């Protein structure tokens, strides 16, 4: 079956005057129809920029250098801006971290959902039906964003994203700004949408356990690289990349109450001055000389792709 999303060898760079910096390098991931794929990683690891590349909404100073992004088999990087407009909202749509600032404060939420409807007929009826789907009352249509709670605002965003029945929904930390119970409601709603509409979800989060419980596949990102792409079921039992291992080691639920939680020492390097070799070698306990000299290429182990010299060197530098 045709994959909903397929990203291969994506490279994105930022231009700052005449200088150019690598933002994303060698991103390879895919999502099958009706599958949820999670992207995890620290802030600044490139999760959102990967998502923005799929929507072709990268900030002005960022550009895709190389690679392919296929949405339902169509190469979106080759599309014109006006073709892309028909993809956005219809084939792929997106929801964001802080729904309050991502809704226009001056218009009723209903009108903002309704204007996303692509086909001219029965726009209002469609909107009303979608409000039911996301479990909002009909009269919310006439309310303004500031009159709604964070959870309701996110539901409006989901209604807006789902109104044209897209194949892919990108959810960029949709629950980070919400309290735990509300967040849980949003995650359940996304699941319900997947079951009802056969939707694929690219779920961006920095919560490892949320990612594992929601998604079938997990991609771990570090400094603009996808260091591990693996089945969600297996990743806790046998994490391959040292970074993934460390991340799992940090999960609070693995510790007894009152005991000290371990962290990954150090911080993500600035993308303007990435170290040579593997970007993780500064924080890696398994570092060998090779790590400081070359970047590890992808190695396939079972169903997991990992970029680390621990699992051999295929000679590829990327």
């Amino acid at each position, binding site marked *: 079956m045709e994959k909903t999303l397929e990203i291969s060898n994506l490279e994105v760079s930022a231009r700052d005057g005449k200088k150019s910096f690598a933002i994303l390098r060698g991103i390879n991931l895919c999502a099958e129809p009706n599958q949820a794929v999670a992207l995890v990683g620290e802030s600044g690891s490139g999760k959102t920029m990967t998502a923005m590349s799929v*929507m072709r*909404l990268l900030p002005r100073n960022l550009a895709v250098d190389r690679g392919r992004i296929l949405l339902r088999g169509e190469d979106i990087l080759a599309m014109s801006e006006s073709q892309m*407009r*028909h*993809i*956005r*909202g*219809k084939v792929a*749509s*997106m929801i*964001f971290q*802080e729904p309050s*600032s*991502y*809704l*226009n*404060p*001056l*218009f009723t939420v209903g009108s903002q959902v309704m*204007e*996303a409807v*692509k086909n001219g007929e029965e726009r209002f009826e469609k909107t009303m039906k979608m409000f039911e789907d996301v479990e909002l009352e009909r009269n919310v249509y006439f309310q*303004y964003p*500031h009159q709604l709670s964070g959870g309701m605002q996110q539901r409006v*965003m989901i209604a*807006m*994203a789902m109104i044209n029945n897209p194949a892919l929904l990108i959810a960029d930390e949709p629950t980070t700004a919400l309290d735990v119970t509300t967040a849980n409601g949003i995650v359940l709603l996304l699941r319900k949408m997947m079951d009802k509409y056969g939707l694929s979800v690219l779920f961006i989060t920095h919560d490892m356990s949320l990612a594992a419980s929601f998604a079938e596949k997990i991609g771990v990102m570090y400094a603009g690289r996808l260091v591990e792409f693996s089945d969600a079921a297996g990743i806790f039992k046998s994490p391959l990349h040292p970074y993934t291992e460390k991340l799992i080691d940090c999960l609070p639920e693995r510790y007894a109450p009152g005991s000290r939680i371990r962290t990954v020492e150090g911080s993500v390097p600035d993308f303007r001055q990435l170290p040579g070799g593997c970007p993780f070698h500064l924080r890696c306990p398994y570092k060998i000389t090779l790590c400081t000299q070359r970047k590890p290429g992808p190695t396939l182990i079972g169903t997991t792709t990992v970029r680390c010299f621990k699992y051999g060197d295929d000679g590829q530098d990327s």
Partner: protein
Amino acid sequence: MKKYILKRLLQFIPLLLGMTFISFMIIQMAPGDYFTQLSMNPEISPLTIESMRRDFGLDKPAVIQYLYWLKNLARLNLGQSFSYHVPVSFLIGQKLRNTLSLSIFSIFLTWAAAIPLGIFSAVKDGRWQDRTLSLLAYIGISIPSFLTAMLLVFFAARTGAFPVGGTISVFNISATGWEKFADYMKHLLLPGLALALSGIGSLFRLMKNNFLEALGSPYITTARAKGLGEARIYFRHALRNAVNPMITIFGYTLSSVLSGAALVEIVTNWPGMGRLILDAVLSQDLYLVMASLLIGGALLILGNLAADIMIAAADPRVRLR
């Protein structure tokens, strides 16, 4: 909403009272009065001057004078001008109309030019169109309006394309209504342009910045992510958000209608209130000054009220109480 407007209109009265009282006292603090100059004239006896002072009530304490002025104001009598010996309302009547038409015309020109240019410049941010417009705006801001007015008058005098000074042409007595209006507008064009040219620059920059800020907002990303066209993103989502801060500025603009035009009026010989008020202040023509301050204050308060109501209508987050 109705209740709010009524409340604000009631607040209007004490505000205006306070404002006029303070300005009345400040004018009286200046040494001497209108008749001090007359006493320099050896042909007028001190006795005559004393009796004139008494006639106008200037021999009484300032507070009592103010109360008299208020009492007359309640009967819509703005008092008598010392220097022209006619009622102030008669003096102001015609000139107020000219000043208002000049100001409103130039405000209209300013906004009609600055808003679209600001949007255009924001959309073309950083490109040559934007840089050209920004440079022109700097030049416009740097040149004072009276200089622009002088240059325009010079241009009009050299080419004869436009009348220099006044509001009507001499041959115009038998003209029909429409012809009269066209003639008036022709006279209005130069001073109006002079006044507008200096205002466009700063308003343009404000509008450009507001629009850029709106374009950088997260809700614009949402609008793009749902596949809306550029026109809808610009003119529905960005424009409405960019225009809201301008409404407050519009309220203040109304208040500067009287004072802002004075210099240009004098340079282009437009028979407005500018020269009248300036002369009145210099010669301490008390009631004439008070009348102009009263009109200015009323415009300021009404302008702000209008801006508040417009903002409440435009922004659902603003609730009037």
